Each structure stands twice: as C-alpha cells, then as structure tokens.
C-alpha cells in the first residue's frame, strides 16, 4: 500500500495568507496541515508517499518535506503542473504507484481519527476503490454518495441541487491500480477538469465494488480562514499540555498549554488554555492569550488580548486591542496607535485581506 498526497491548488479562498505560501503549510496548533496527513499515513503503516505538486508553492512544500526522512517516510515528488483536475493528478501517480493499491489524501484535510480502519477494511475486501464519507448538514456543497444495501457506493454526484443522501465524499480515497484505466476514459467536466468522481462512476458502472467508510470523529477541509480556526480549535481541544518553556513569577497560566522550551510567559501576562505557543515566543506584560489560540514561532505579544485565533509566526503584536477569531499571516505587525496624530487606524493591508472594526 502506498500513499499519494495532494499538495497542489491555488489556495484562493485563503488569500492573502496564500499569496506567500501554499495552504498545505498553514499551521494548525503550530504544525503544518500537511504533516497531519503524513502522520495518518504512518499510523496506517504507509511510508512510501508520492507528493503531488501543482503550479504554485511547489518549492515551499518540497523544501519543507525534503526527502521525508525527518518525518520517517520516503517521499517521491510528482509534479502535475497545470491544475487539470483530481483525476489527472491521481493519473500522474501511475508510475509511482507501480501496480500497488494506494491511498489518496488531500493535503489540506485533517481527520480526528486515523485512517487505519479504512485501509484495513479495503485490504480485507475485494474492492476496486473506496471512499471515506461523512454525514453533513449541507451535502449540496460536496460530492454526495448513494450506497446499496451492502454499504457499497453505487453513485457519486458532484454538488447536486437535490442530494439523495447527506453522506458526502471527504478528501480520502483508496484505489486499486484499476483506477488508472478508468481515469484514461474520463472526459473533462463542465468546468473543464478531469473529475475523480467520474473515475469512480466508471469503476462502479463496470461492477466495482466501491467500498464506503464512514469516518469517526470530525473532519475538516481547511480551505477557508474560518476552517483554519475551527481545525485549530478541534486540535487544541485534544492537545497534551507540556510546559517546557519559562513562566515568570507573576504570570498567570491556566488550562492546557503547550509551551515550547524556548518560549517565555513574562510577569503580568495571562494565558488560558487550550493554547499552543511555539519556539521563541514572548508573551509579555498585559498580554492575554485566551482559549483556542496558537501563537507561531518568533512572535512577541505585549498589551494585546487575543483569543480563538491563529498567529502564523514572526509577528509583533502590541496594539492595546482585543482580537478574536483572527488569522494573522507571517510577519504581521499590530502596533499601538498611541502617540500618533491625527488619531486613527493606520493600515498596510494586502490584497484580499479582511478586517472588521
């Protein structure tokens, strides 16, 4: 069994954060999203991983993952280039897969539970493919699966107006090598892409069977800023507290806090978990870091209150304001306007930014 990890896409819904880096490297609880997928592969004993790169951000992903050895896996890069659809991306992995069964994992997805059971069920059966599914309240926004009495998939419809079920396809698939012949017969969809759902339908129409697996626990596609915040919240809910850094006398720290050994919480600061604080972070006097916040490396916070937020890193946060539900990109400066005239907020805001005053 091999793994194919998709790390392409433009990340357009995450601009301006993705103007300067791929969405798969955005940290959730101070760990890039893509590393959660690698952890899941390892947990399922899959260590040969093909990482599919697109047009944008491929150097950043490659430089982060390297040859995979630092993560205990072996990585082969597969460069798709132009985004021609998921079926094309998977088709590019044919030589890497080399006749094995394989798991496809969208690199911006996070699962609460490992994929081990899904992989085991697939290996124990005689399936040509498998899809991970989840019940959602808004199925019309996803690929919707219909199952037969045995629980096998008989139909997948992409974003139907009138969904037959509330079971939707999430970003984890299992394939036998038969999928490559199906992909060769996929025609471009109305949006001009080669859709993986069409490859599934070909496999189903030719007798399948296609296994369905309902994921346990939560699943998040981290495609939008609010998804990043929610995934951060979900991960922090299960965080293991580890106070390895310095807490000065006069600082108040309560709840589950993961404090890096090089981070400092200074006197007069308040931190209430669950919170993740990365390396070389200083939480200074009069700062409040509230629940469900992750502070990325080399960030200094003084005088600011922040809660339910993600600070990616290398930032200076010193405005005497309260920030909630915020996603702050790398090298952000939030400074005090005190001492500046005329009174007013001074902004340097990138394209596609969103501010609420």
């Amino acid at each position, binding site marked *: 069994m091999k793994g194919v990890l998709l790390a392409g896409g433009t990340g357009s819904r995450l601009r301006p954060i993705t103007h300067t880096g791929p969405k798969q490297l955005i940290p959730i609880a101070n760990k890039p999203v893509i590393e959660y997928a690698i952890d899941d592969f390892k947990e399922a004993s899959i260590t040969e991983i*093909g990482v599919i*790169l697109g047009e944008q951000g*491929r*150097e950043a992903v*490659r*430089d982060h*993952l*390297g*040859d995979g050895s630092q993560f205990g896996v072996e*990585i*082969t*890069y*597969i*460069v*798709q*280039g*132009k985004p*021609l659809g998921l*079926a*094309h991306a998977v*088709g*590019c*992995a*044919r*030589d*890497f897969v080399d006749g094995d069964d394989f798991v496809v994992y969208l690199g911006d997805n996070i699962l609460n539970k490992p994929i081990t059971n899904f992989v085991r069920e697939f290996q124990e059966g005689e399936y040509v493919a498998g899809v991970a599914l989840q019940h959602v309240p808004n199925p019309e926004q996803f690929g919707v699966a219909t199952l037969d009495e045995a629980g096998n998939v008989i139909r997948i419809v992409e974003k139907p107006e009138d969904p037959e079920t509330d079971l939707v396809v999430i970003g984890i698939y299992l394939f036998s090598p038969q999928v490559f012949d199906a*992909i*060769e*017969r*996929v*025609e*471009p969809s109305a949006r001009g892409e*080669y859709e993986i759902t069409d490859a599934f339908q070909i496999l189903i129409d030719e007798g399948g069977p296609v296994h369905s697996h309902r994921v346990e626990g939560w699943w998040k596609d981290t495609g939008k800023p609010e998804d990043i915040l929610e995934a951060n919240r979900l991960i922090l809910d299960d965080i293991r507290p580890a106070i390895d850094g310095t807490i000065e006398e006069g600082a108040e720290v309560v709840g589950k806090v993961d404090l890096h050994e090089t981070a400092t919480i200074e006197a007069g600061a308040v931190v209430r978990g669950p919170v993740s604080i990365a390396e070389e972070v200083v939480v200074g006097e009069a700062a409040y870091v509230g629940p469900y916040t992750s502070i990325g490396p080399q960030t200094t916070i003084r005088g600011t209150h922040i809660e339910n937020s993600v600070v990616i890193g290398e930032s200076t946060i010193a405005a005497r304001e309260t920030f909630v539900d915020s996603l702050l990109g790398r090298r952000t400066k939030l400074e005090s306007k005190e001492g500046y005239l005329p009174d007013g907020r001074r902004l340097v805001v990138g394209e596609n930014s969103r501010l609420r005053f």
Partner: protein
Amino acid sequence: MRIITTTCSNCGTIVSGTLLEAERLLKCPGYQCHEIRRFDELSEIDRAYLIERATRIDD
C-alpha cells in the same frame, strides 16, 4: 485522457508531460536535484500528442 509522465533518472521525481510541454526546459523540481528536464525526454509520439492537445485547448 492519456496522461504522460516522465521520471528523473537522478532523483525519481515524476513530471507530467503537460508541464514539460508548457515549459520545454526546467530544472528538475525534485528535492536537491540539479538535473535539467526537457520536453525532448518524451518519445516523438508523446510529444506530438501533447502538442496537439495543448493546441486544441488553446483554440
């Protein structure tokens, strides 16, 4: 859809034919690899297919 790929003899990185058709020449995108990847790596039949396909999409 025929998907054409080629593999770097040095690092094993796989590159799609559509990317090579578009760029014609590129430094291997593999990790710490310095090979030059060329459209000419592909067979004449594959190159003709990719050029025909790209022309069709452009039209």
